[in-house]
């Protein structure tokens, strides 16, 4: 069991981690999520006694790491897969770690077999791919057969087979009663692997709940309605009728409407009463990735913007108009539904689906209407949409997502 109490780390005037308290329990995979630079790795280093907290403390089994008896046999960690001397062979790398912890050399060959590197064991790790490096790092973490395991971004660079292997390995380790703490920035991956989630942003705790609770709290359902193209007055009419009935209407880029707060039959009735024809009325479910991005939106440190490519353009002749960008383009979160507490829960969770698989699956539109980009949770290997530029219509981030400086 890992327990952090009021953990704070400052580097000069930059606060990397602020007042973080959480518990990582044995027998479960605990996912540690947060955008880049949110303090995940700093927290992991503090757990391992590598960085000293500015305030607060973190213990493993009740001991601060440096005072943990026989630490390398109790705790195994993968911090950085690239942290190997490229000129050393995989086997020698593990051998010196084993000797450092008083682990017999035959265990090295054993873990090399476990991670599938036995054929390249005597090759220099310089030539390893990122995925092979991850496997070597995982082998190092497994060396001491520890009860507590920490993995910092273990699936980075792995192929689908490797990702599946890591996922099953984590679950198997947890099933043996071990404490497994895995950081990631892939919500979709964590939804499949973790039992419990700890989400941080800007070094502060945003959520600490079981994955089931996270899914039911965050996967807002919505309906997509499409009125006939070329008749915008119908669309406006329907929008006002739906809003009047208590629904929350969000226009989508292609002219469709995204509606929360009203059940499907009610939307149909309202449209009928308003004498508006519908080309589409379909149930949809927001992905966990969206929920996660909404949660961390206020806490993203590194935000990408649209590439204007102005540096490459010829200076325009005087009087010429620059081409107008298509509104909404390149803004992956323009479709994000409002938080469920505003919009309510119009649709029940689809029944008969597992809590892990179900929530991430979008319902395909009946007429082949593409589901919103990024809402597609069916591909857990896909990179999440890059930290999205703030769309103008975005509701302001909740107060607890603001900078740590504000909390003081």
């Amino acid at each position, binding site marked *: 069991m890992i327990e952090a109490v009021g953990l704070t780390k400052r580097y000069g005037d930059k606060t990397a981690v602020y007042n973080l308290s959480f518990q990582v329990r044995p027998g479960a995979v605990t996912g540690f999520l947060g955008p880049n630079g949110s303090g995940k790795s700093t927290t992991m*280093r503090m757990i*391992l*006694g*590598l*960085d*000293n907290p500015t305030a607060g403390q973190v213990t493993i089994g009740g001991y601060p*790491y*440096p005072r*943990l008896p026989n*630490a*390398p046999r109790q*705790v195994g*960690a993968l*911090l*950085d897969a*690239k*942290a*190997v*001397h*490229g*000129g*050393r*062979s995989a086997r*020698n790398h593990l*051998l*010196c*770690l*084993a*000797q*450092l*912890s*008083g682990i017999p050399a035959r265990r090295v060959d054993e873990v090399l077999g476990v991670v599938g590197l036995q054929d390249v064991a005597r090759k220099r790790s310089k030539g390893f791919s990122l995925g092979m490096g991850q496997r070597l790092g995982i082998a*190092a973490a497994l060396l001491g057969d520890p009860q507590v395991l920490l993995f910092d971004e273990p699936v980075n660079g792995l192929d689908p087979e490797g990702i599946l292997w890591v996922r099953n390995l984590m679950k198997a380790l947890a099933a043996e009663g071990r404490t497994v703490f895995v950081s990631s920035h892939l919500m979709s991956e964590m939804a499949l692997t973790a039992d419990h989630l700890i989400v941080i942003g800007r070094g502060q705790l945003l959520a600490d709940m079981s994955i089931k609770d996270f899914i039911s709290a965050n996967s807002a359902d919505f309906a997509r309605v499409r009125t006939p193209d070329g008749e915008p007055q119908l669309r406006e009419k329907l929008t006002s009728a739906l809003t009047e009935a208590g629904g929350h209407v969000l226009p989508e880029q292609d002219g469709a409407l995204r509606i929360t707060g009203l059940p499907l039959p009610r939307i149909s009735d309202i449209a009928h009463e308003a004498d508006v024809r519908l080309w589409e009325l379909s149930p949809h479910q927001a992905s966990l990735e969206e929920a996660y991005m909404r949660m961390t939106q206020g806490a993203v440190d590194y935000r990408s913007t649209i590439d204007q490519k102005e540096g490459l353009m010829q200076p325009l002749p005087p009087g010429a108009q620059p081409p107008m960008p298509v509104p909404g383009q390149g803004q992956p979160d323009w479709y994000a539904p409002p938080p469920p507490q505003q919009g309510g829960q119009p649709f029940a969770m689809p029944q008969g689906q597992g809590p892990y698989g179900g929530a991430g699956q979008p319902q395909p539109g009946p007429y082949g209407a593409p589901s919103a980009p990024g809402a597609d949770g069916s591909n857990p290997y896909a990179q999440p949409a890059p930290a999205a530029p703030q769309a103008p219509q975005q509701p302001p981030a909740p107060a607890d997502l603001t900078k740590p400086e504000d909390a003081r």
Partner: protein
Amino acid sequence: MTAVQVVRSEWTKIRSVASTVWTLSLAVVVTVALGMLISALSSNEFDDMSRRDRLSFDPTFISFAGMSLGQLAMIVFGVLVVSNEYSTGMIRTSLAAVPQRGTFLFSKIAVATVLALAVGLVTSFVAFFLGQAMLGSHRASIGDAHVLRAVIGGGVYMTLIAVFSMGVAAMLRSPMLSLGILMPFFFLISNILGNVDATKKIGQYLPDQAGSRIMQVVTPLDDDTPYGPWGGLGIMALWVIAALLGGYVLLKRRDA
């Protein structure tokens, strides 16, 4: 117990990278080859030397002339042994396995020191015998007064240079920074400070200037250094201890 584990692990680390073999064999080859060359040249020039120069002719010291270059390879060895941990990021894995940072650092340095001492002594003896062979009739014998002290001292000198570099690398962490400071310092700055009259008084207390006294058998005529061979080695040892303490304190305090 932990120290034994670290020593075993560090031995694996040190023998499983190519840089160890390269730097140490370069130290041997350069020191011996340059020593032989300069010994041969000095032997030819002896007849043209002034009386004064002949009186202070030190065949033992001349055969160690290659050390001014060979020590640079020792510096690279010392720096790489420590800073490889930082440049690769292995330091975090190592310190997670051995949270006792002092035990880790000093066991690591002990392994590298023993290896450097072995290589240094071999270099020193080989450089001496091959150098004397080049000197022909002007040669010194290992049985002459103070010669054995100078030859063993040569090996100790090379070792201390390597250990000093380890201490500096433990403080600075970056191999580039450490080498960028140590190499020009020992190759140029120390020599300049030690040979310019105005700075000689300070220069003679620098680690290499003081330490190399141990290799001298014949003292130069106008010598006014306030310390003898052992005193010089002691001054060098103080520098080494200071560098190691600095490295230890920083490693202890710093976030890894």
